[in-house]
């Protein structure tokens, strides 16, 4: 009795129980998938199971096709209205900007960003290429490599809710950000402790890292809060940064599509029939897909009402879908309005299926990539990523 009381009251046990309660979604292991990804053949022992799965899969697909004719809401492909470009304002001056540097330590080194907020009374523009540099570069030469990536633009015809053109006039209290990363710091001795940012108009600002020091001896410990990561002495030190991105979405877009509303919905990408709620919870509804460049991938998305109350859409929300690559290619995505009118009232726990179409670009990166789907909702955790294998 005494022992039980001790276990229950102990803070570590309480925390452990609480964490495990928060991460309690069941799931099923799939060793065959691991072997397939590793490029290994399936063993003889697994062949009978595979055959069974094939037969079951065919039956499920057949059932799904039958059910699909009545239970899946069709895809409309309606895009939201394009965000209008504001008239060009005078360039932002550094004295009118609030500047903040944020960074974090990752396995790859330091990653961070610089936020600029217009603290003036009038709109100003942040159009053009900024320049980022480490102060005291002499300690880095000749290994330092500085790389710049222009801001990503949506593909022609697709809609961006926070287009770069917003930077033509940054209103008061709004701003922009740029991301940077700094990797492979192996140099002994003094390190650059500051970053210099030059705006497109030539204005300059310097901000310091706090407590960034090079490793004292050899490799720094993983997750050291005081040093960027050192991989190899002979590799080059790299500072990479991107152009400015606006950090806000116009209020008109937010109100039109309810971007500030938390939807009590859980989302799942479906490629295997029309699963039950139990299968949705167990994650057994997706097969690793092979898709061809330049074709249309047809799949379904399930939305489940996770609240204890009936739910009805007040405004049809937006969603994004696209291909996210792990290579250096930027992800491509399109934004659409969800065809929510036919849904009506969703009872607690009810699942609704939506047909989806994704145009795979002709230049989509080959090999292992991801298809992504996300509902624009204030609630976090809505972005889905599923692996796909893109073939020519």
């Amino acid at each position, binding site marked *: 009795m005494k022992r039980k009381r001790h276990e229950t009251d102990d*803070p*570590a046990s309480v925390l452990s129980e609480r964490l495990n309660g928060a991460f309690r979604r069941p799931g099923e292991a799939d060793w065959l998938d691991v072997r397939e990804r590793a490029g290994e053949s399936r063993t003889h022992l697994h062949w009978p199971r595979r055959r069974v799965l094939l037969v079951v899969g065919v039956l499920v697909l057949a059932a799904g096709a039958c059910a699909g004719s009545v239970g899946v809401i069709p895809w409309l492909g309606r895009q939201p209205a394009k965000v209008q470009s504001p008239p060009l304002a005078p360039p932002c001056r550094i004295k009118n900007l609030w500047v903040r540097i944020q960074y974090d330590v990752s396995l790859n080194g330091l990653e961070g960003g610089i936020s600029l907020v217009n603290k003036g009374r009038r709109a100003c523009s942040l159009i053009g290429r900024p320049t980022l540099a480490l102060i005291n570069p002499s300690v880095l030469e000749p290994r330092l490599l500085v790389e710049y990536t222009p801001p990503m633009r949506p593909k022609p015809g697709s809609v961006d809710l926070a287009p770069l053109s917003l930077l033509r006039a940054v209103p008061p209290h709004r701003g922009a950000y740029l991301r940077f990363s700094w990797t492979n710091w192996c140099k002994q001795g003094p390190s650059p402790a500051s970053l210099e940012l030059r705006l497109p108009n030539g204005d300059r600002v310097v901000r310091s890292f706090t407590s960034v020091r090079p490793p004292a001896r050899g490799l720094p410990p993983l997750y050291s809060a005081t040093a960027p990561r050192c991989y190899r002495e002979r590799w080059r030190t790299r500072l990479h940064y991107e152009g400015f991105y606006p*950090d806000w979405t116009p209020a008109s877009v937010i109100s039109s599509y309810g971007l500030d509303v938390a939807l009590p919905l859980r989302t799942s990408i479906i490629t295997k029939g029309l699963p039950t709620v139990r299968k949705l919870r167990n994650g057994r509804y997706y097969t690793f897909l092979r898709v061809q460049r330049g074709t249309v991938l047809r799949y379904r998305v399930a939305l489940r009402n996770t609240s204890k109350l009936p739910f009805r859409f007040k405004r049809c929300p937006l969603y994004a879908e696209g291909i996210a690559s792990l290579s250096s290619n930027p992800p491509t995505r399109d934004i659409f309005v969800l065809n929510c009118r036919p849904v009506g009232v969703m009872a607690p726990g009810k699942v609704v299926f939506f047909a989806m179409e994704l145009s795979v670009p002709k230049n989509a990166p080959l090999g292992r990539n991801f298809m992504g789907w996300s509902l624009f909702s204030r609630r976090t*955790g809505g972005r889905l990523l599923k692996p796909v294998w893109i073939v020519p």
Partner: protein
Amino acid sequence: MDKRTRAIEDVYNRRYLGYRNALAGIAGGYEAAQDIVQESFARALKSRGSYRGDGPLEAWIWKIALRIALDQRRKIAEEPLADTFEPELPEPEIDGELAAALRTLSPRRRLVVFLRYVADLDYAQIAEVCEISPGTVAATLSQATAALSSALGNEHPDPRALREAAEQ
């Protein structure tokens, strides 16, 4: 099937949910975590010849999983800057208070907490995964637990008692 493949398969079958659930806290979702687990074990299987056996096999696979998770998160991040730095709980509606408390932890502390309490690794394994000493693991864990307890409104626990309890 060779001995090492069997060992990897054994870890996978025994510990699948531990990997998936802890990675969900790092990757920000169960879907992404599931894929990372599959990919991690696939890579472990492909490179099983490079495992020297000088540390626990589970910790070696964890290192692979963390590299994939963090690399993936960095490369496909599309969120605004503020979100990039925010830790995520996959289902914050289950325990909103805990989700808010976890957000107050630094990435290192959060990682150690997940590895200890969700992935159920011992101190030596966490030390191996994070390339830090077991003493640093203990200190980080006790600081993180104290911070969480404080954020959750519990009494500030004695770090030594926590360590002893966690080691039991």
